[in-house]
């Protein structure tokens, strides 16, 4: 018979609380009652892992999805997806989306008066390889204003979505760029209590993956929950 091995629980300080008052939208959208602890069953240790194999090269190269090249600073974002035991996660779907170099999203509800770029959509997807490595080519997104508080600006970021191997490993996060002066003023970044965990959200500039006369390289590793050591016999 098979085993169900539960996934490890995160240290609370590594994750934001649902309610973080400086981020105003959390106030009427965060549960006020405690979560009910759910021991993992077959429902939580399984998840959608199929049908991700029909991706093309332009899915992971956001600079080649149109007839011309997008404006902005061309970058290569690569890294590994690991579990918290340090094991690479192969063949895992990563979906990303971002603003263009001017800080504008191709979205009907983005009213920021910055130009759209006809050569940039800002969405991509990739699968990790057998050793958990992934790579995207894109342009560096611009900072953009939002209405959370007076003169509020989001630091430049790329949204990352990972299903991982199970319902329990589902993660949506954001990747930031090193040294951004807006970190101190951004309640979404600051919502993560632990400083070391916040650093996990910041990509590292990397000369190794920087391509001469072409594009700057950034390294960004993503760590999903790993399994507990002991399986439950079934």
């Amino acid at each position: 018979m098979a085993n169900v091995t539960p996934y490890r629980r995160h240290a609370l300080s590594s994750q934001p609380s649902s309610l973080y008052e400086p981020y105003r939208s959390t106030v009427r959208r965060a549960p006020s009652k405690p979560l009910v602890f759910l021991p993992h069953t077959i429902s939580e240790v399984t998840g959608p892992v199929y049908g991700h194999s029909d991706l093309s090269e332009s899915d992971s190269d956001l600079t080649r999805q149109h007839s011309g090249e997008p404006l902005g600073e061309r970058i290569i974002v690569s890294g590994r997806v690991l579990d918290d035991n340090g094991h690479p996660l192969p063949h895992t779907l990563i979906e990303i989306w971002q603003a263009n170099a001017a800080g504008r999203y191709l979205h009907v509800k983005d009213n920021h008066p910055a130009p759209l770029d006809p050569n940039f959509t800002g969405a991509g997807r990739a699968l990790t390889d057998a050793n958990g490595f992934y790579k995207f080519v894109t342009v560096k997104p611009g900072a953009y204003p939002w209405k959370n508080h007076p003169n509020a600006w989001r630091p430049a970021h790329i949204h990352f979505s990972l299903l991982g191997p199970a319902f329990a490993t589902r993660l949506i996060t954001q990747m930031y760029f090193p040294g951004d002066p807006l970190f101190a003023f951004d309640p979404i970044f600051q919502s993560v209590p632990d400083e070391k965990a916040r650093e996990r959200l910041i990509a590292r500039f990397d000369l190794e993956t920087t391509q001469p006369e072409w594009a700057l390289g950034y390294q960004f590793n993503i760590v999903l929950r790993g399994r507990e050591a002991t399986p439950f016999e079934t």
Partner: protein
Amino acid sequence: MDLIPSPSQTVGPFFHLGLTAMFDGILATPDAKGEHIRLICRVFDGDGVPVPDAMIELWQADAEGKYHHPDDPHKTIDPAFRGFGRVASSEDGSCVFETIRPGRVPSLLAPNLKGTLQAPHLNISVFARGVLKRLATRIYFSGDPANAEDPVLALVPADRRDTLMAQPNGEHPGSWKFDVHLCGEHETVFFDV
């Protein structure tokens, strides 16, 4: 090794750009075995206002209680069944899914629960602007006799279990509705998964 996990961040208001192209609300095509249902999920904030920029994902077993996943010891799976869906809410906060009523899956909660079965349920994740980390819960079917012996429902305070029940949608056969209240008086039970 014990690496620091990546923190969750909100999906933000512009996720449609990246997340709605590959997936949709069809978890089971018309050929799938089982009782076909339409499930309408609606998301409300703490003021009871519909959330027009939420995203719901569903994950469920097929009609025989098998997950489409290598860790499910039952290997055969209905090929017309996907088991996963993702839909962005419309202006009225609703997300519509086409699926089948799932079968019962084993509990496997702990050794002393060996052999017991869970009641039919769907696993649901809710994301939105203002939601810093995924809110996870379950959708059960109101009136299902198996609910009384479900080991997960038993963990939920009795007076809040009805927040996890999909209700038949009026006169439309096969149509169910499930309301998610992020907070407030009718707050849905969410799980620490």
